[in-house]
């Protein structure tokens, strides 16, 4: 019990450190937010005309998926941040302190969860300005936002694992793109899956980004055809399995790598 509360305190201290750094170095957050805003507006106005979804404005279809993309891209920054921390002497001090072993990594992940929350709220604001409208009430919308943050946290553990494995900032950056691009584009995020070649549809159908986008659409839009017609239950079940699976695999792997820094 005492051990548990010490571990929670350690995680909170490390979270505070990371959040403080985000506030002190706002450039990274600001440019990240700007990039997302530019992408949102570009995709909406460039593709929006070409991709018609039965007379429904493209932003209704696109924004929910874009929120999923925001956390996917966001998690690659975690790799870079972890690799940066490992390249400095401070990690030796942390490892020589009596703090809980997972605290260094977990603090980072929680701080990133807070970062995603801010980004998502900003994206929704920009989406509303570009014509997006909620059609299913407030509570489902809030649930959707919480589920995207959870998805972001699950993905962040992949980012943690890559960061602690490559230990180099540039490599971490590139390594992130390798898994992020297929995940984002081979999904229902930008275009309906039915328009893809057959073989790619298999991947797109089990892609967690497709499930996440489906859940958000269903919760934001309700019975609107832009929601894709698939049931909320199916996508919700899929994304929760993905979240649990990613964390069950990547949390132990990451913590093991952390302990193995002593090898």
């Amino acid at each position, binding site marked *: 019990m005492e051990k548990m509360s010490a571990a929670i*305190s350690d995680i909170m201290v490390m979270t505070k*450190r990371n959040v*403080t750094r985000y506030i*002190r170095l706002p450039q990274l957050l600001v440019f990240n937010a700007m990039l997302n805003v530019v992408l949102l507006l570009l995709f909406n106005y460039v593709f929006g005309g070409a991709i018609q979804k039965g007379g429904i404005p493209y932003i209704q279809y696109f924004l929910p998926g874009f929120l999923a993309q925001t956390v996917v891209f966001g998690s690659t920054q975690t790799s870079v941040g972890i690799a940066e921390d490992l390249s400095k002497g401070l*990690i*030796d001090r942390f490892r020589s302190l*009596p703090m809980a072993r997972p605290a260094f990594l977990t603090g980072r992940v929680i701080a990133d969860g807070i970062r995603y929350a801010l980004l998502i709220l900003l994206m929704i604001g920009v989406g509303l300005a570009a014509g997006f409208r909620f059609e299913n009430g407030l509570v489902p919308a809030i649930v959707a936002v919480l589920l995207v943050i959870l998805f972001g946290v699950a993905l962040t553990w992949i980012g943690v694992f890559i960061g602690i494995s490559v230990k180099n900032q540039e490599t971490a950056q590139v390594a992130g793109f390798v898994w992020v691009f297929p995940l984002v584009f081979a999904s229902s995020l930008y275009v309906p899956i039915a328009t893809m070649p057959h073989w790619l549809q298999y991947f797109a159908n089990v892609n967690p980004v497709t499930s996440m986008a489906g859940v958000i659409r269903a919760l934001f839009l309700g019975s609107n055809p832009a929601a894709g017609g698939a049931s909320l239950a199916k996508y919700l079940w899929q994304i929760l399995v993905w979240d649990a699976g990613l964390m069950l695999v990547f949390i132990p792997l990451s913590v093991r790598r952390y302990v193995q820094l002593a090898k």
Partner: protein
Amino acid sequence: MVSNLNGNSAKSDCAQDAIIVEGISKHFGKIKALDNISLNVGEGIVFALLGPNGSGKTTLIRILTTLLIPDGGTARVGGFDIRQNAASIRPIIGLAGQYPAVDEDLTGKENLEMIGQLYHLGNAKSRTRSGELLETFELADAGNRRVKTYSGGMRRRLDLAATLVAEPKILFLDEPTTGLDPRSRFGLWDVIGKLTKDCHTVFLTTQYLEEADRLADKIAIMENGHIIRVGTPAELKGCCGGETRVKLKLVDPNQTKQALELLRELGKDQMNSIEATGDISLPADGGTAILSDVVRRLDAGGIQLAELALTQPTLDDVFLAITGHAAENTADTKKTM
């Protein structure tokens, strides 16, 4: 400014061994960083690991502070085994690595409070300790500034302060004064000398012979992953060559061999020399009278002297006598001063 701290801090009530190392080895690929190292460090003393770059000092510190697992051998720190009880070791040690390990984006005060909280001192105690230490290390005025704005010396002081937040029983300092200007170095020596009260132990590494001589109660000389000699500064000085020595430097180092020939009779097989620099040292059994003898002999051979002095033996002499060559990095460490 700095008092000689040798031999006055090993107290009789500190009976235990703070650190016991038995046959520790560590390889990195094909390189043998540590080869079967064994040593004991008693409580309440300053122990210095002295050796050139690449001799394995940092590797040994990393093993003893639970950052690195050795390939072979065992070690106990504060009575706990480094493999089985690493978690019990961490609360009682403090580590200052070779480079200041502080968060540049936090303030000095935030850094120390964070360390206190990670030692589980609680918020109130962490704040008090942070305030005290900023005061002690003359950082009180800079406490609310981000570390990014600190000078190298200030970072070093903050780093040392961070290791002291939880008043650990055993302190590991890896080259604590490397890269500091002489004034900061003397200041740090003063602080380190006071750390051994209440049976607290300091284990430090250094490339500076002078530093080990000033600070340490016991010194281990390390080279190429081996410990080649252990003793008190007095023992090490006594072991190799007479008490007082004549030290001289030739204007022309090329004449070193010739000079050694001329001085052979005085040197009695206990001369040391560095041909590259024209440095020669020899025992001065006869007291000051030997100086005129040295001058006369060299003068007769037409060899000009740049320096001539009668000195107490230093660890330089010891290092030279034991290893057969000078401490390799004296030249490049001088640059960093």
